[in-house]
């Protein structure tokens, strides 16, 4: 029972390997790799004592590794960690891992890969959307260029947890898949001119509807055939008024109107 073991994660997933090593009361290091990602789980007499996957450590790292469906694994006997980060029993770990796999299967049916790039969808169907702070954290990172994996790395969340948040955002209708041309090149449509008016417009609209604001401004100006650089009060007022009608919350819409009416009156008239 002392020899190293190895294989593919497409046939044997991480929880099964953990179960086998636990039943065999093994000690050593289970290394897993999946493309550019890698992780490891350490065992002492069949108990899991430490795990690492990217920036994640402990049980969170195991749950991240548990959902991998491709890649390689290798178990090296008697390799011990410097730290102990897991204090759960193998049964507890496996129960939660099974739960995570079940959730992940549902996520993958909608988001098949962490290499997908999403962009904000300006066509919001719901009148009002309530976001959790974790959803906002992810939403603030979405720029039509970064993959889910990139965002997971930036936010310090695991890829699977990030995918779960993406799942909820896609389900809410806030995101759409970015087209390859959008993903490859900078998203020109969210690069707004740096005039005082546009800056005020962007700041106030961002307060009202969040990071999608620059996109909405560009799209609205395009729909209305307006030149964002034109110094025309009528055009500015028309843009403000149309944008205010796109704010789902009436209170926020009035706040936006209030602030921008003030701006127009003091700066332009």
């Amino acid at each position, binding site marked *: 029972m002392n020899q190293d073991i190895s294989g593919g994660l497409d046939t044997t997933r991480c929880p099964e390997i953990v179960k086998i090593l636990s039943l065999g009361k093994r000690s050593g290091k289970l290394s897993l790799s999946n493309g550019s990602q890698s992780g490891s789980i350490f065992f002492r007499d069949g108990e899991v004592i430490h795990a690492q996957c990217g920036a994640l450590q402990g049980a969170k790292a195991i749950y991240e590794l548990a959902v991998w469906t491709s890649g390689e694994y290798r178990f090296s006997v008697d390799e011990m960690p410097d730290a102990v980060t897991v204090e759960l029993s193998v049964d507890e770990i496996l129960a939660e891992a099974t739960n995570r796999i079940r959730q992940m299967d549902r996520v993958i049916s909608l988001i098949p890969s962490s290499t997908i790039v999403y962009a904000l969808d300006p066509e919001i169907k719901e009148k009002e959307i309530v976001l959790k702070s974790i959803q906002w954290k992810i939403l603030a990172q979405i720029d039509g260029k970064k993959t889910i994996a990139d965002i997971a790395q930036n936010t310090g969340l695991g890829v699977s947890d990030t995918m779960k948040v993406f799942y909820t955002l896609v389900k809410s209708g806030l995101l759409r898949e970015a087209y390859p041309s959008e993903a490859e090149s900078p998203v020109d449509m969210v690069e707004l001119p740096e005039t005082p008016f546009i800056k005020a417009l962007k700041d106030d609209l961002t307060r009202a509807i969040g990071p999608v604001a620059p996109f909405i401004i560009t799209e609205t100006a395009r729909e209305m055939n307006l030149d964002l650089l034109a110094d025309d*009060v009528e055009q500015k007022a*028309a843009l*403000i008024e149309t944008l205010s009608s796109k704010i789902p919350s009436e209170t926020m819409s009035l706040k936006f109107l209030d602030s921008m*009416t003030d701006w127009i*009156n003091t700066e332009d008239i």
Partner: protein
Amino acid sequence: MKGTIKDILKISGVHGYVLARDKTMQIKLPSKHRFAGAKKQIKLLYDDLIQARKRPGNTMEIFFEDLVLTIFTSGMTMLMVLSSTRVNLALVRMTGKLAIANLAKEKF
């Protein structure tokens, strides 16, 4: 919130306004304005608009040859802004929306 009727009146091209709620109506227009004596017709318009509860939106614009009526409604309150056709209508709508939101909160 700063949107008031006074702010609307400051907009160049605005002639005046009509404010109506229930049976009360306040008309502020130059005495020679052709709508200054049109209380009865405005009342009929008010009754029609307020009764039509399923009407989408709360801002209407009625264009005449030489003037525009911009009407804002909220609940039982109606604010009608009368202006020239050369007025910055978007600015009227912006300020009017704020004003009607404030008026709807007030007691007459």
